[in-house]
């Protein structure tokens, strides 16, 4: 007799399906990125994800876990993907691999593997790289025109092996960098540039992250609580600052459309393992990540602060959960 526990039926939903759907939602932004900047990012993904999967397999082996089902869960795949798209595609390959090592080995397996990591693995990898290689991490390529030829220029695919030199001129500061510099130099930001002249590549990618995120909400992979509270939080707090001094603080829309706002809202903080499980807890988490992000962007030393905000709030997750337990049926 085969053991058969109740319930005998099961919804056709697995961790692999969840991770696959999330990856699917990331594809539109990837296509936009390739169109603007070339195939380099795809090459990074292929190399980086392969490396991440090897690391994952080695860790599973060392920890005496079955390799196949755990590799199939897609978590290492997704973590690697998120880290690689968070760093400039011109990043030297060894730097990227260092980040992946911290994401997969240190922040996940050293803490007990999938389900047990208190910190968001992709953000740990990102934070390690940002602190260790600040120059490289801000070398974002300049926003060019969308070009279909980029999809066919395969020489770019593995350009990371060709040279690690970063050619001056193709690199330019992102809008958030510009603001930081302007603030540092004491120039009023309105004079430094206008944000609404044109949508640049990063802003278009932001819109694709938003679309991908809405798809995940429709597919019920994620609930509205985390993304909406983060987006509203960034909107409200940057609105308040802008009202106080428009010369120094950028308007809300700027903060939503630039940096990693939508990527983080729908793909980073929605990592179930390291964010709160209670609905009220998710809202508190989203609001606090938004607040800390606005503070770092406007007063801190880094142009974008979402990664630090996420890691900082990860620390509070058990506490948030403790104080946001919902009422059980019949206890009202």
């Amino acid at each position: 007799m085969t053991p058969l526990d109740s319930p005998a039926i099961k919804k056709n939903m697995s961790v692999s399906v969840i991770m696959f759907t999330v990856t699917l939602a990331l594809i539109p932004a990837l296509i936009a990125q390739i169109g603007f900047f070339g195939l380099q990012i795809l090459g990074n993904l292929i190399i980086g994800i392969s490396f991440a999967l090897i690391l994952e397999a080695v860790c599973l082996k060392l920890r005496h876990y079955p390799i196949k089902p755990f590799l199939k869960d897609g978590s290492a795949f997704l973590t690697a993907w998120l880290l690689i798209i968070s760093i400039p595609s011109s990043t030297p390959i060894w730097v990227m691999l260092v980040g992946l090592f911290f994401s997969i080995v240190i922040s996940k397996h050293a803490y007990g593997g999938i389900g047990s990591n208190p910190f968001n693995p992709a953000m740990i990898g990102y934070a390690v790289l940002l602190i260790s290689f600040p120059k490289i991490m801000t070398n974002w390529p300049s926003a060019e025109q969308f070009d279909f030829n980029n999809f066919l220029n395969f020489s770019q695919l593995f350009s990371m092996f060709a040279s690690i030199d970063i050619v001056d001129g193709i690199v330019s500061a992102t809008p958030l960098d510009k603001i930081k510099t302007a603030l540092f130099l004491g120039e009023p930001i309105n004079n430094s540039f206008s944000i609404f002249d044109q949508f640049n590549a990063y802003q278009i990618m932001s819109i694709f992250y938003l679309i991908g995120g809405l798809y995940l909400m429709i597919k019920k992979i994620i609930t509205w609580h985390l993304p909406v509270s983060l987006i509203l939080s960034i909107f409200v707090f940057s609105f308040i600052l802008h009202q106080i001094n428009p010369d120094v603080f950028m308007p809300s829309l700027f903060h939503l459309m630039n940096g990693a706002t939508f990527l983080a809202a729908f793909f980073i903080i929605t990592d179930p393992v390291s964010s709160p499980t209670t609905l009220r807890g998710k809202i508190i988490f989203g609001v606090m990540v938004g607040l800390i992000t606005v503070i770092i962007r406007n007063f801190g030393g880094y142009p974008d602060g979402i990664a630090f905000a996420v890691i900082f709030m990860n620390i509070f997750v058990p506490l948030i959960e403790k104080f946001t337990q919902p009422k059980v049926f019949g206890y009202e």
Partner: protein
Amino acid sequence: MNISDKIFKFFGGIKPEGHKQISTRNPIKRLPLPKELIIPIRQHVGKMPNIVVKIGDRVLKGQILAEPVANMSAATHASTSGYVKEIKPMNIPHPSGLPDQCIVIETDGKDEWIRLKKIDIENISLSNLLEKLKHSGVVGLGGATFPSHIKLNANRIQTLIVNAAECEPYITCDDMAMQEMTQDFVDGVNLIMHILNIPKTIIGIEDNKPQAISKLNSVLDSSKNIHLKIIPTVYPSGDEKRLIYLMLGVKIPKEKRPTELGIQVFNVATLISIARFINYGEPVISRVVTVTGALGQPNNYQALIGTPIQQLIKDAGGDPSQEVIMGGPMMGFKLPHTDVGVTKAMNCLLAVTDEMKSKASTEMPCIRCTKCVEVCPAQLQPQELYWHAKSKQFEKLTDDYKLFDCIECGCCSYVCPSNIPLVQYYRYAKSEIREQAKSSEIADIARDRNEFRLFRLEREKKERAERNAQRRAQVSDEDKKKLIEEKKVAIEAAMKRVEENEE
């Protein structure tokens, strides 16, 4: 009486595939009389009834085989006429797989009834009626098998709720019974309302039973106090607390029974059996069983209690080697033995399908996705319950996460993307906690006894000392002097004897 049509949707729940139509295509079927019936003596929650027949006795259909011994007990009857062939422990349909006392009846094919006496409901006292019901074998036929006469011993009931939700996939016995025994069903409702003086009734039925709904609508038109509330098909709407909330918007608080809030709930099949008993005098000797799943011709059967289930499976196009679940796919359990008879609790026999067998079995770690939280109708935190059950932090489970409010409906396991058998973890934790409570109770008793023993020894010692002191006090001073003199004399005499001896 006006009742709002509002449906109060409860939190959570799931919408699994219904698979109901496969067993509702044909009317309720009856098998030819089986050669033997295997009737478990205890088919209810409560005390084991007392067997009143012996091997070799001829029994009639409806004759009592075992008498209730206490209030929390119910009678068991012979389902047809024949001879008592055996009385011994045999396999019963129970998840434990342990045998229990059964009576085997060799049927004589005559199907000869005892003399049935209907009950004159207008001229019978409540206590007499309850006593008769206790001997009627009527218990909750929804699966809980709680003796019905206890539920009728209630007063100030304002609302009768009829559980016609039948929310488990595959099961259709109540649906079919409402369609084919509509009058008995409505009679049952009216009888309960009459007995308990209940002003209004709400029948809660899921919208996946259009035929039963239209049948009921055509019958209920005349009666204004019985309302049909059609609820969306969401599992587990048939859970008592969830159903009450759906109907009235009332959440039964923890530690309270619905009757304390003026609500009583009866299941469809139970009402029919109450009507059959009061109107015709028939005790519970059969029930409708859905026989479905991976079978050639799934069907509903009006099966005599004790009918070997193999015969039902075979008639529905199955074979004896098939694995069978008793109950629905969500809360039912796989029968450890299939050489058992139909019981009052058996609403469904579900032959395990290939899909169920292929249910992904690799258990993966919990990723805290809270899909389980989204579906838990008790509004628990299943992922926390799992975590603390696994790490055996039982105090946290009971105090912080309210493990015992879990109704084991299985919604969490159904949606879990990591294939964690969550309900099994909860059952394990519950039984561990009960076991600990029991052993700590035993330890408490032992400690109390020991403390009392020490106290008693101390008390006896004190009493003895007091008694001695008292005795001493009673002796007067003169007596004491006298005693001392006597002793002196005795000593001197002894000394003299010693000296004489030495000389």
